[in-house]
């Protein structure tokens, strides 16, 4: 039977209160106003087993599960931004005061 935790309705962050990367990831979702569900594995034995099972026996946190079934373990903010489809770098390095309509349409 497939574990329903692998396809959550909202992004689910498995972490602990003492883990700095968990705090950073939660802060990232909060700042970007992306809804997420947080599970403290110190207070949820089943969740701890799930994290260990997902990470080949390792208790790697944060383990973040997305509704599409993908899992990210200890991702950087840039990796999270990419996963969420955010543009993090510009097409050009210099902004011209006036661009022609043709350029803009190109």
């Amino acid at each position, binding site marked *: 039977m497939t574990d329903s935790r692998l396809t959550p309705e909202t992004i689910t962050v498995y972490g*602990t*209160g*003492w883990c700095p990367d968990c*705090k950073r990831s*939660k*802060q*990232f979702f*909060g*700042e*970007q*106003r992306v809804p997420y569900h*947080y599970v403290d594995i110190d207070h949820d034995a089943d969740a701890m087993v799930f994290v260990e099972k997902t990470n080949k026996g390792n208790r790697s946190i944060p383990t973040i599960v997305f509704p599409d079934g993908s899992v990210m373990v200890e991702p950087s*903010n*840039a990796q*999270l*931004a990419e996963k969420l489809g*955010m*543009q*993090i*770098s*510009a*097409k*050009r*390095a*210099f*902004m*011209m*005061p*006036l*661009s*022609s*309509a043709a350029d*803009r349409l190109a």
Partner: protein
Amino acid sequence: MTAALYLGREGVETLVIEKAGLGGQAGITQTLDNFPGFDEGVSGAEFASRLTRQALKFGAEILQAQNVTSIDQDGQYLCVYTSDGKEYGAKAVLLATGARYRRLGIPGEEELIGSNVHFCATCDGAFYKGKKVLVVGGGNSGFEEGLFLTKFASRVDIVEFLPQVKASKILQEKVAEKETMSVTVNHAVKELRAKNGKLDAVIVEDRATGKQKEWQYDGVFVFVGFSPNSDLVKGKAEVDQWGSVVTDKTLMTSIPGLFAAGDVRAGSTKQAASAAGEGAAVALMMRQYLAEK
């Protein structure tokens, strides 16, 4: 964002660099009740989303989750550096970094931010379903956010440092009507005691008697005013005694080509409507500046 849509619409190549959610403080406001043209109010999230789409429609490019680390002058250009090591150049730059909720600066606060200490009820209120929370700050923000928190928390208490609260009379009446809310004045929050990364107790001092007390809460929401996000230009551009960026009548700072608008600007009124108005005004001033260069 208003400036971006104005400038984009004028054909000026416009890049918006945003660290957090698009739309700034307005985007995390539960409902904008007093933004002109929205007679039935509009949720902050929807407002931010519409504003973003409007700016994109007019050709603005928007970077998200990107932090500006420095703004420097290089001849007649301004260089903007981001945390991923990239550098962007332009003849004119707008500082619209807004303001952030001020922190208490007391022991335990830093450690508990993100777990039991919060600055946004809209963002984090849902974590306190059926729980007991403390709101620090008796101003309009504290009262408004406290009222919002009653949607989730079973108990919402407000504590104010001064002997009286500063919230508007209407808000005070709304809070007084709530059986699950209370207000304590003249108490200083001295420490947020942490145990294993969780809030263990809130240590407060009754300022009238000097007596210390221990309060038990599941979470603390802090609303004790704003600090302008002006660190990028401190020591470079003129700022006032509160750190707000000083501008001239064209909304240009003391650095040629660097403009400021919204909550970061000295003299701003911290209102979404006036921030939008300043955005439109500064776009026209920047256009004029660029035309003369």
